[in-house]
């Protein structure tokens, strides 16, 4: 239930609304009552307790405010509406501009694609770097999966940027959609909280609950497998993390929000994301500042093919996986009810 400062008023007034009293203050009545009160034969508390007509309904107020907001928004749209002829001209110009810009974009993209080196043809730009990766990737990174070696060792800076993009997106979504009792933007957001109760009884469905019980552990095991074997086979941080995030989402749908919140709350997810990103940044920053292979010298590479191999790749994989999983989960939670 919503806890606002006017909570007491709110509850009392929802009671009034049920009874169907009119909530308007009658000014002429009021003056007469004041005179009566002075004379001593009128008790102001009596009306309040009997909820006769003096109390204005906060629910009614909320609705009125909603109506005002909606009409304001709509009026803004309609005042800016152009005259009919202008509108037709605008439509024409709009369509022409849309078609022209679309064709322009297609042309530019096709032109750019035409400039790319041909697939599989030997040309110096695309072969020198690739040769280095293929020939000495295993010795330098200790990863059998060359892709993991590239994205988490040679090109780790890119992956760091991607993780930060995800984190920034999560922050933006949080700013837009977060609506708890501390920062309600408008009063009508309690509308959603009332509705959500009805919408979110998925976990009471027995089929979904049972299927979730069977599926979620399997999904988690698969996600962890993909995550930990990033340096040995296909997979890695992003894939494993997204699989685990999907598992968290299915868990929330199957077992209900409260249970998953006890397992991992949105705040915990944010903290895990932050700590993983900080770890990634510090580890990679250390490597950047001490030269290309600085930290790798201290961390044993291990036998290629084992889980504990690849030097820094495995911890970085885990960090990226945590970021992705927790970001997906946070997205889902924020989109699900618009509340944390």
């Amino acid at each position: 239930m919503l806890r606002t400062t006017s909570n007491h008023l709110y509850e009392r007034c929802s009671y009034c609304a049920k009874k169907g009293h009119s909530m308007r203050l009658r000014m002429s009545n009021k003056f007469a009552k004041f005179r009566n009160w002075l004379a001593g034969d009128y008790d102001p508390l009596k009306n309040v307790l009997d909820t006769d007509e003096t109390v204005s309904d906060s629910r009614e107020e909320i609705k009125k405010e909603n109506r005002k907001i909606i009409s304001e928004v709509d009026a803004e749209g309609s005042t800016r509406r152009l005259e009919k002829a202008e509108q037709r001209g605008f439509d024409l110009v709009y369509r022409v501009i849309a078609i022209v810009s679309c064709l322009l974009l297609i042309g530019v993209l096709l032109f750019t694609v035409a400039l790319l080196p041909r697939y599989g043809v030997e040309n110096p730009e695309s072969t020198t770097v690739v040769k280095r990766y293929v020939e000495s990737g295993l010795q330098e990174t200790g990863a059998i999966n060359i892709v993991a070696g590239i994205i988490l060792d040679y090109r780790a800076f890119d992956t760091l940027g991607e993780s930060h993009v995800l984190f920034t997106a999560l922050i933006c979504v949080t700013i837009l959609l977060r609506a708890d009792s501390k920062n309600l933007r408008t009063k009508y957001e309690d509308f959603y909280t009332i509705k959500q109760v009805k919408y979110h009884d998925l976990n009471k469905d027995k089929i979904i609950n049972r299927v979730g019980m069977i599926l979620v552990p399997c999904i988690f095991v698969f996600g962890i497998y993909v995550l930990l074997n990033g340096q040995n086979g296909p997979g890695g941080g992003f894939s494993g993390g997204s699989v685990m995030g999907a598992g968290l989402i299915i868990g929330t749908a199957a077992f209900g929000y409260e249970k998953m919140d006890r397992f991992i709350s949105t705040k915990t997810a944010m903290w895990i994301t932050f700590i993983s990103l900080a770890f990634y940044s510090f580890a990679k920053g250390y490597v950047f500042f001490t030269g290309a292979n600085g930290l790798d010298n201290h961390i044993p590479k291990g036998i290629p093919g084992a889980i504990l191999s690849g030097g820094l790749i495995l911890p970085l994989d885990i960090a990226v996986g945590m970021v992705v999983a927790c970001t997906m989960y946070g997205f889902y939670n924020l989109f699900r009810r618009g509340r944390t």
Partner: protein
Amino acid sequence: MALTDVVKIILLVLLVVCAIAVNFTKTLLQAVIVFMSYSSVMCIIWVLMESPDLAITEAAVGAGISGVLFLLTLRRIRSEDDRREEERRASGKSDKDEPGGGKFESR
């Protein structure tokens, strides 16, 4: 022509069909479902192009999570529609009076 080539061509045609079909769906829910099927087809194509890690990511993100997020957004829009309808009924206006009424028609 090998069998994989035939499968590849069928999948690529299906991909283009899905991409175009998103534009011609009647409701947003259909658009989301077609989009998710596009991602599933893309996932199989990634496997055929020998990049299974991308296939895993595509299946989890494209067909799974982004679809779920779209559906949640649709539900939010729907509850917004419900709210507007309630407001309209309360103020005694019909749908046509409201500029932009039924703009987010998702049913």
